[in-house]
């Protein structure tokens, strides 16, 4: 009997030291991974930051060049404006990806109207929507404004809509619904068309991963959506059937602007640590 017990103890010891050894190894490999990721992030950040100023200037100037009645110039104008909008969108995504990778993302809450954000996103995607003749319906069941981070929510919605336009069928409909459920804000974007297959799910939200059904943009849009949702304690997922795909994001709704920071503290304020161990 004693021998058996000794064996067990020995086995346990070996497993422990093995796990310790392997964990140290993982830690070491992880350090290398973090270092190489850092170099990538720095590059990304440099590129995005150096592109953002020129494109902002271009975007603010282009509308002044609207030729109005000259048909030939109007075509050129539209192409230039469309491409500038696409470029701006991609740079915004690059910048967001760089910020996320650097861990520099601060969440700043404000009162917002989700419908306004959707309309803003539609405006920035107007050429893509026109080209495919897509109809966008917005169903908002939330009457009041909500508290969330407007910049991040806008980027999430814009990416989901862009995705819907790209994969949606021509002359199709995109349904955007906004609702509140169990203190959470739900925004879903449903487009008609074949959705990504379930087995491709892990790739869909992975940065720079090649899309299994072709390549669109930089491959970072949905990864940004996932990361931003995660950063704000929310979720993102999609469901697809044979004729449509629906991306749904949830974000916890902040109910109190000013006291949100102090909320957790109260749990401990009146807690007695009198008989606690002091170390």
């Amino acid at each position, binding site marked *: 009997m004693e021998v058996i017990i000794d064996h067990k103890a020995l086995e346990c010891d070996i497993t*422990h030291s093995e*796990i*310790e050894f392997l*964990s*140290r190894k*993982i*830690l070491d490999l*992880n*350090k290398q*991974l*973090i270092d190489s*990721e850092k170099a990538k992030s720095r590059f990304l950040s440099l590129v995005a930051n150096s592109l953002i100023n020129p494109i902002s200037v271009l975007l603010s100037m282009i509308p002044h060049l609207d030729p109005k009645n000259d048909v030939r110039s109007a075509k050129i104008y539209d192409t230039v404006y469309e491409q500038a909008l696409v470029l701006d969108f991609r740079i915004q995504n690059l910048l967001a990806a760089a910020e*996320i*990778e650097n*861990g520099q993302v601060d969440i700043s809450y404000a009162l917002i109207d989700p419908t306004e954000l959707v309309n803003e996103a539609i405006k920035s995607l107007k050429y893509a929507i026109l080209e495919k003749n897509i109809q966008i319906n917005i169903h908002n069941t939330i009457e009041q404004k909500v508290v969330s981070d407007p910049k991040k929510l806008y980027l999430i919605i814009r990416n989901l809509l862009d995705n819907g336009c790209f994969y949606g069928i021509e002359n199709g409909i995109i349904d955007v619904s906004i609702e509140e459920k169990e203190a959470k804000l739900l925004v879903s974007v449903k487009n008609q068309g074949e959705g990504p297959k379930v087995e491709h799910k892990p790739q869909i939200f*992975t940065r720079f991963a090649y899309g299994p059904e072709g390549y669109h943009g930089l491959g970072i849009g949905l990864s940004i959506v*996932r*990361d931003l949702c*995660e*950063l704000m304690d929310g979720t993102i997922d999609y469901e697809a059937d044979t004729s449509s795909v629906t991306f749904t994001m949830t974000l916890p709704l902040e109910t109190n602007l000013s006291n949100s920071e*102090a909320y*957790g*503290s109260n*749990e*401990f*304020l009146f*807690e007695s*640590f009198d*008989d*606690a*161990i*002091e*170390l």
Partner: protein
Amino acid sequence: MIQGSSTFIHVGQIHVDTSPSAISTVLGSCVAVCLYDTKLGMGGMNHYLLPFWNGNGLQSPKFGNISIPKLIEAMMMRGSLPKTLVAKVFGGASINIGNSANTMMIGEKNILVAKEILKDYKISIVAEDIGGQNGRKIQFNLERGKVQMKYIARSDIGEGN
């Protein structure tokens, strides 16, 4: 009794504050590293869930190997030097929820990663209460750099602590 305010931190958070404030949290298999700068009367605490970031998704401070260097950096940004810092490590219990956490030895790996990283930065661990099977409530008092700790029943530990 703390004179200043007490900040409660959740999983994946890092908080740095000065005397006479306090920082508190609740731990199960999670680990919290408390760093104290004896010269500046400043301290910081993190609270992480898992030992390693695996390259997928965000480099979130819910992973030990991301959170601990971030905590050290945050202290250094405010003027600390590794040699003026001391560390106290808490948590890493083997909480038997459905046995899965235990077989993966999450608590022990969480402890190991804290010790290895602190060793790398040459920050000495002056106090610790780690492992075991009980959750812990801790309050880091920045006035004296002392940590008050109480064991808690399993039912009081929230999910993911």
